């Protein structure tokens, strides 16, 4: 008998190239994944981002410091308030400004509500892509209730443009605390139902456990942050590691994973929702009275409306800020905060004019998405879907 080698016995077959995206049901956030398939096994994948690039950084240089806020809304559009806060903190750091306590608490509350929204919608999308459409709608429903509150506070459901440098657009509406106290448990209940539907379901476990696994070392090497990094067991959270606003005064824990797989990422997000709810409740209890913005005499914020209408002094101030923008002293700053996907950094350079001379964003999911290719190599085509979902790529933030 002649000896045959394995290769000679099988039919020669070329790997199939499959373009997933940019318009593909699971490639939300507009991304393209060029997958090389051997059967359904992913031999290699090329994740191509940039379909949502709209020149955020250049746009910022065009507008005044305040005009950047609407743009930041469109970074991570699942949790715009966190971007608002991140940017406001960066400019305030450059200005050397400390906002009043009430403003800090409100920012924490709204930020954590936004985080709940973001984690809900991310988990929802991931579940939907695994075919659990009901879970998607339950989680979106949970988010919807919170959106109602945010709309009442900010005047818009998604594009809030609510933060201002040195303060906020408005104070909280009167019944805010009661609304949150009644809505949050409802949302958590919906989230609990989703957990019942998925967490111990074998199909879900099979699809997510051991899939998209990454070691803490690799995750750190890729520059991962946020829930994705924490799912590998690294308890790095900017809110704990480098506390900002009033996170130091609030009691919360960091959920971490153990395996760094899709399951851990999913569960970490759901756990973080609980922690965020905890933060919100505490902050509501501690919410102090007082101004929500730095005083008018700092010349940072647009002055009180009534005074603007009736006195020349505030009219002048109003005009100067509108005409020239806030006068930020020359210098540069890197400021970072914990956004929904991880560390959201703003690197700002001011040349003393009313506009940012340079505004660079360090979007958390840009670093996270890089690893997608590594996470899916050698896995099956369907594994791309939950892995991509659990990384939570947000095009607006990643492509800027």
């Amino acid at each position, binding site marked *: 008998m002649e000896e045959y080698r394995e290769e000679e016995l099988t039919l020669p077959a070329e790997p199939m190239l499959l373009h997933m995206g940019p318009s593909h049901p699971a490639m939300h956030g507009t991304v393209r994944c060029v997958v090389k398939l051997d059967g359904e096994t992913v031999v290699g994948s090329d994740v191509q981002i940039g379909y949502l690039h709209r020149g955020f950084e250049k746009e910022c240089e065009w*507008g*005044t410091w*305040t*005009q950047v*806020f*609407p*743009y930041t*809304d469109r970074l991570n559009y699942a949790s715009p308030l966190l971007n608002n806060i991140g940017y406001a903190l960066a400019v305030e750091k450059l200005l050397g400004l400390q906002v009043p306590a009430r403003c800090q608490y409100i920012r924490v509350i709204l930020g954590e509500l936004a985080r709940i929204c973001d984690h809900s919608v991310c988990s929802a999308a991931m579940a939907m892509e695994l075919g659990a459409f*009901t879970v998607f709608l339950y989680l979106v*429903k949970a988010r*919807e*209730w919170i959106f109602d509150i945010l*709309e*009442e*506070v*900010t*005047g*818009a459901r998604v*594009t809030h*443009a609510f933060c201002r440098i040195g303060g906020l*657009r*408005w104070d909280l*509406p009167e019944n805010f605390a009661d609304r949150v106290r009644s809505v949050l448990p409802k949302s958590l209940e919906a989230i609990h*139902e989703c957990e*019942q*539907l998925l*967490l*111990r*379901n*074998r*199909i879900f*476990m099979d699809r997510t*456990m051991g899939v998209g696994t990454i070691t803490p070392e690799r995750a750190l090497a890729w520059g991962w942050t946020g829930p994705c990094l*924490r799912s590998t*067991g690294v*308890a790095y959270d900017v809110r704990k590691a480098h506390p900002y606003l009033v996170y130091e005064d609030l009691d919360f*824990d*960091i*959920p*971490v*994973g*153990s*395996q760094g797989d899709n*399951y*851990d990422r999913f*569960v*970490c997000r759901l*756990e973080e929702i609980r922690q965020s709810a905890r933060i919100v409740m505490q902050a509501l209890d501690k919410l102090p009275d007082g101004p929500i913005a730095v005083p008018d005499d700092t010349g940072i914020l*647009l002055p009180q*409306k*009534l005074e*603007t*209408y*009736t006195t020349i002094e505030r*009219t002048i101030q*109003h*005009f100067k800020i*509108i*005409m020239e923008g806030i006068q930020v002293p020359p210098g540069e700053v890197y400021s970072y905060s914990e956004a929904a996907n991880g560390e959201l950094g703003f690197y700002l350079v001011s040349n003393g004019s009313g506009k940012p001379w340079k505004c660079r964003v360090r979007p958390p999911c840009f670093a996270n998405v890089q690893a997608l290719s590594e996470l899916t190599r050698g896995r099956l085509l369907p594994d791309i879907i939950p892995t991509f979902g659990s990384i939570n790529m947000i095009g607006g933030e990643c492509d800027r």
Partner: protein
Amino acid sequence: MPYVVKRPERDIWEQSYIPETVRGMGVTLRHFFRNVIGRRDTVTILYPEVQRPYPPRFRGLHRLTQRDDGSPRCTACMCCQTACPAECIHIVAGSYPDGHPLAFVEKYPAEFWIDELRCVFCGLCVEACPCDAIRMDTGLHARPVEARPHLMYERNLLLSITDAKGDVLTANPRKK
């Protein structure tokens, strides 16, 4: 303090599919029967028939406020045009002729265009107005129209839009 999230054991309960499927169906069917019989938990609304009330702060379509005599409160100071990040506002200033009852304010918007299609509804124009002349408290959102020009809102149209309560005036106490 960091804590490690739970990962369920994989024993016969999970591995046999059926108990968890039944439990899941318990959740879904509970919703089903609650919605079919009696208590409706639906969060969606039948939109045009049922309208969700917008909160007072809702940023809707713009309006221009009026003085007591019906003239535009706007003085064409261009602050909103300056503050608008979408560059959707276009104003041409005019001056009241001598002898006009409003000649003391000198200036008014001869043309005032808002391209509601370009608008991003950020509200910066409202904040930028030093006269409380432009507002977004109409409680209206940009509805679909048949042609682009229909959403190019012009001065008189903007002046005629009222706020959610039907008022065309402002909170600006200045009579002048």
